């Protein structure tokens, strides 16, 4: 017998269940307990760049909205810098780049306000098109799902994006593109996520 490798094994994932709000967004569960809940302000008041709103719905394999989902967003600032000690560069004071998003319990619609991120350096000197990383948990989702939201007005950068280009099936790439629209002067991106079925969203093993 060879020696044993002494690595530990990652703790297995379990579903967040239907009551994820109690822990991560107690106000939505119906009670007030913390001085401040985390994740409600992604960009902060000092963030530079274009203020945008992102909206969508998560749809299951039967075509029904998923009403008990929670998403987390992780993004760079408008200069393409992540608020993290390993990422070179500075972010604006109060910019965290992370947020939590929960759905309306009746409709399944969700939305969040932020700034549009800038392009981020990829591997081997490439550049990645502006994107927001999303992590999706819910009852019935055993391991959180990772996807990326890209922007419809970045067609050139998207066409060169090394991650989008990893997706062999070109017709599936459009599932990652949020559609830009102007609503009474506010910039809104629509990003619907399909867990299963026609136009199933591309999910990543990161």
């Amino acid at each position, binding site marked *: 017998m060879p020696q044993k490798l*002494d*690595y*530990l*094994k*990652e*703790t*297995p*994932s*379990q*579903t*967040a269940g*239907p*009551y*994820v709000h*109690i*822990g*991560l967004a*107690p106000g939505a*569960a*119906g*009670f007030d*307990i*913390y001085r401040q809940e*985390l994740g409600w302000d992604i960009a902060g008041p000092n963030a530079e760049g274009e203020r945008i709103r992102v909206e969508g719905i998560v749809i*299951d*394999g039967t075509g*029904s909205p998923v009403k*008990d989902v929670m998403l987390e967003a*992780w993004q*760079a600032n408008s200069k393409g810098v*992540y*608020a*993290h000690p390993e*990422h070179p560069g500075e972010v604006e004071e109060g910019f965290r780049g992370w947020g939590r998003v929960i759905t309306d319990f009746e409709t399944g619609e969700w939305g969040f306000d932020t700034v549009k991120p800038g392009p*981020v*350096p*990829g*591997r*081997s000197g490439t550049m*990645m098109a502006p994107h927001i990383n999303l992590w999706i948990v819910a*009852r*019935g*989702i*055993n*391991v*959180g*799902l*990772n996807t*990326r939201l890209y922007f419809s007005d970045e067609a050139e950068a998207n066409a060169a994006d090394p*991650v989008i280009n990893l*997706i062999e099936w070109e017709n*599936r790439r459009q599932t990652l593109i949020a559609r830009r629209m102007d609503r009474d002067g506010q910039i809104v991106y629509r990003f619907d996520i399909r*867990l*299963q*079925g026609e136009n*199933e969203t591309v*999910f*990543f*093993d*990161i």
Partner: protein
Amino acid sequence: MLKPGEFYQRDREWHPPAYAPDYKTSVSRSPKYSLISLENTASEITGPVFGHNDIDPIDNDLLSNYAKPGESPIGERIILHGRVLDENGRPVLNTLVEIWQANAGGRYRHKKDTYLAPIDPNFGGCGRTLTDENGYYYFRTVKPGAYPWRNWVNNWRPAHIHMSIFGTAFAQRLITQCYFEGDPLIARCPIVNTIPDPEAIERLVAPLDLNATIPLDSIAYKFDVVLRGRRSTLFENRLEGN
């Protein structure tokens, strides 16, 4: 000098699969196509950073963080404590750990929970803390009760505490559930049994930890969490390859 690099790939045969038909809700919420495997970029090796300004010291004490002055929740008083480590066995410091749970009767404080067990006026059911410089965390709470749920006609969840952990990178993000040693419902739970490997299930069962009990006050359970580990590289900290 050794520098941190990419994270070890997640062992998808160790985690539960997306499609696990005995857990019925997973059937229509599981992607049918394969995940696209992505080598880590800056987007995955970074993640949100939290500090002591984000939370309050009382947040890890579920015996008091929602109780009226001088009162406390009904139930078995427990300490849930442990360390957050990575796969290399190194402690993960200053990382946010959040928990939520049912009360001692198995009822959640949630507008969507209609189970007939009563709400406890002195129990909120959530807590959060940052690990210390050794990766250590602890909570005080009550042991949650088992409760029925709709799957098959007669399914009962074993007593469990939900736990959310961040690590230092979005690639380490994890939500799991902690069960308690000796509970006969663990082996019968379709959600537990989404995990294919019995050894992996054991990692979610917190043993009774008599050494950490407070005599005449609270009983203790120990629950260590392991997040993905990282390669160390002798080379420049630049991610190569496609």
